[in-house]
């Protein structure tokens, strides 16, 4: 394979990228699908994507980590259940809980891995209609005080891509009440709840706000022509948000 032309979505930082100098890890598990897409989004946001392999134990000094979407281990047993035990996950769990509060974003299967890892509360079960669903989905940003949402306004509506089979977010009432009370609901579905998620929750954060998980896919809405309705780029804000967080700024 020649290296001068990236094969479709290969990880190679675009020339002149990484202006911020930020390095963002994108983890690949066996069965991960959207790792190239997440790396592209990182690049378009101006940072450098760093490929992290599930079986390795070094975080390679990255400044933040993305657990991308897909079907790790085929989603067999439960979505995210087997991937959660990868060596790389132990490192990520430690780094996310450490004083440094490594920013971690879980998208779709990544969100499922985060709940299985107990970095985020609750769990995901099959969509209420039992089918895989792929559609353009409107979300409301409920909290822009997390590491991954600072570039949005609270209450802002964005349109990104939703695609999942096990996307119904559930938690017990106490947990749901606490999430709402603490402002940890990061995103809600607007207009239609596509999978039966409790209280229309599409994404949540941990207490510190450095760990965020969401079911829909912001990385599929970063380039005009390849996202919702052939034009949408609303997802880019997630990736620029973390860069802002890393340089210590806010909007």
């Amino acid at each position: 394979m020649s290296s001068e032309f990236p094969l479709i979505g290969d990880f190679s930082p675009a020339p002149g990228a990484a202006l911020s100098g930020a390095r963002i890890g994108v983890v690949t598990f066996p069965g991960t699908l959207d790792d190239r897409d997440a790396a592209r989004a990182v690049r378009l946001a101006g940072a450098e994507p760093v490929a992290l392999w599930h079986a390795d134990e070094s975080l390679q000094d990255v400044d933040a980590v993305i657990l991308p979407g897909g079907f790790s281990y085929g989603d067999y047993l439960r979505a995210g259940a087997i991937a959660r035990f990868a060596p790389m996950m132990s490192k990520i769990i430690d780094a996310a809980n450490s004083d440094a509060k490594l920013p971690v974003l879980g998208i779709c299967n990544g969100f499922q891995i985060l709940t299985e890892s107990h970095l985020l509360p609750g769990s995901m079960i099959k969509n209420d209609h039992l089918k895989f669903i792929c559609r353009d989905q409107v979300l409301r940003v409920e909290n822009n005080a997390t590491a991954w949402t600072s570039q949005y306004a609270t209450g802002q509506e964005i349109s990104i891509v939703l695609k999942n089979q096990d996307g119904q977010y559930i938690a017990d009432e106490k947990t749901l009440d606490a999430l709402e009370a603490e402002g940890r609901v990061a995103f809600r579905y607007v207009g239609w709840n596509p999978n039966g998620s409790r209280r229309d929750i599409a994404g949540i954060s941990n207490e510190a706000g450095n760990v965020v998980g969401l079911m829909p896919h912001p990385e599929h809405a970063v380039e005009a022509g390849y996202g919702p309705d052939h034009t949408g780029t609303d997802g880019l804000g997630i990736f620029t948000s973390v860069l802002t967080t890393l340089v210590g700024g806010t909007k």
Partner: protein
Amino acid sequence: MTAEAHKFNIDTVEHAATTPDTELPWAELGLKQNEFEEIVKLLGRRPTAAELAMYSVMWSEHCSYKSSKNHLRQFGEKVTEEMKKDMLVGIGENAGVTNLGDGWAVTFKIESHNSPSFVEPYQGAATGIGGIVRDIISMGARPVAVMDPLRFGAIDHPDTARVMHGAVAGIGGYGNSLGLPNIGGEMVFDSVYQGNPLVNALAVGVMRHEDIRLANASGKGNKVVLFGARTGGDGIGGASVLASESFDDSKPSKRPAVQVGDPFAEKVLIECCLELFKGSLVEGIQDLGAAGISCATSELASNGDGGMQVELTSVLLRDPTLTPGEILMSESQERMMAVVSPENVAAFEAVMEKWAVEYSWLGEVTDTGRLIITWNGETIVDVDPRTVAHEGPVYDRPYARPEWQDALQADTFRASEAGAGLPATGGELKAAVLELMASPNMCDKSWITNQYDRYVGGNTALSAPDDAGVIRVDEETGLGVALSTDANGRYSFLDPYTGAQLALAEAYRNVATAGAVPMAVSDCLNFGSPEDPDVMWQLAESIRGLSDACMELGVPVTGGNVSLYNQTGSTPIHPSPVVAVLGKLDDVARRTPSGWRNDADGQAIYLLGT
């Protein structure tokens, strides 16, 4: 001899030579008397059980194209130099390869998985996607998209829901898990497909020119390796006579008639193969589809320059009771076979370990010109691989225009005669349009396409409900491809020659209206029994029509698939040549979506054509 060697009553070549009169179940395995006699002539003795297994699957209609070969030649003959100029690999390999320029190449192919999808719709359709994707990987390409032309029985028939929902879920379940966007397809309901749904699947892949790989085993001393899933009894349920290799009365153990797909295993296999290609670690590679190891060993060997020696006990098994013949015939999914030079063995193994893919070394390439397969060192197959893979029987089946064709064509609808039924007022016209739009074959397909991931990969520039799917190949230049599949069984039934041409014309138009230059054609010819002269005529006419039209439009056929015996009892399906056209866009940013645009207020509408 070890106990292992005695696990079965092994029918060795030596044994076969001394027992010429042993009764063999060639008829049960689907061979005709003349075919069996031909095998005996080729070998100069009766075949062993294992050889019989290999010949029977490789000489089946499905693998040998024995009824269609004489007609399919036209695809190779009716081509001009101009049509060949971008064809890097033509018909005959796993899939054809077309030059896209800038060092890029694209490969695509369409195949059927019709009867497995009727028996078990979810798994049948899922493994259909799996199989076509492996064809694309084995060319050295990264698969980038899939499509699924589907045909089911009447929408209100009680069995249609079972088949249709199962097949759609299976295509989604497998394709979505592979990370391949589904960029288009078809959905047709017609009672002719009631007992014979058509589940066709297309995959497209891209590669750099230097990454093109072919299925051949050359270089004496190079190692032969089987990797991916373990071999089970899948797909040999119908050939249970082989369960007792000595053909005595011992009871065959249970063999599944259906295959269950493991999309996760296939996704890992894709990444693992791409890593092998990147490191130039394989000399030749072949996917295992129908006819499994029989097909892979005989094709690799006969496309190479020598022979091959394989020890069959080295195959990793899921079911330890499989006999040698069954191992050779098994259709277990998610397996690949490769030829690796000795200096790359360690690097090859490192890639397998990284992806946790199981593998086993089976043997090596030789210069004997023979394919020799042993079982614990005893020879059970000793054949010229070309006689298995390429020089099977070819039939000139009789065909004739059916007697009923004239009556069928004469049965037309004339507005003047049936005038009373035509809409006369604006209101009636509106009602007629609404009725048409709500008919099963015209209405919205988003209930299907919403179950398919169209975004994964981030390169989908057009997908449903557009006329063609468009995929970006090069992120820097915007170079991309457009694809459409079409067929109309009713047109083809009325006139197979013109019907096939119309299918091509429609797919060609869909690609052109998306803004692409049509470049290549792949086709899946779904027909009834070739032993019926009416059906054989439909097949012959369709191929003649399609090849003439390809010549006329200047687009070559680079590959495809023939699916025969699609019939219930003696009633065949309508002739259904599904045609896929691939086109090129220099910059996918210039693609044209179909449908009115929101910002198009005040723009003029033109109707082009006659």
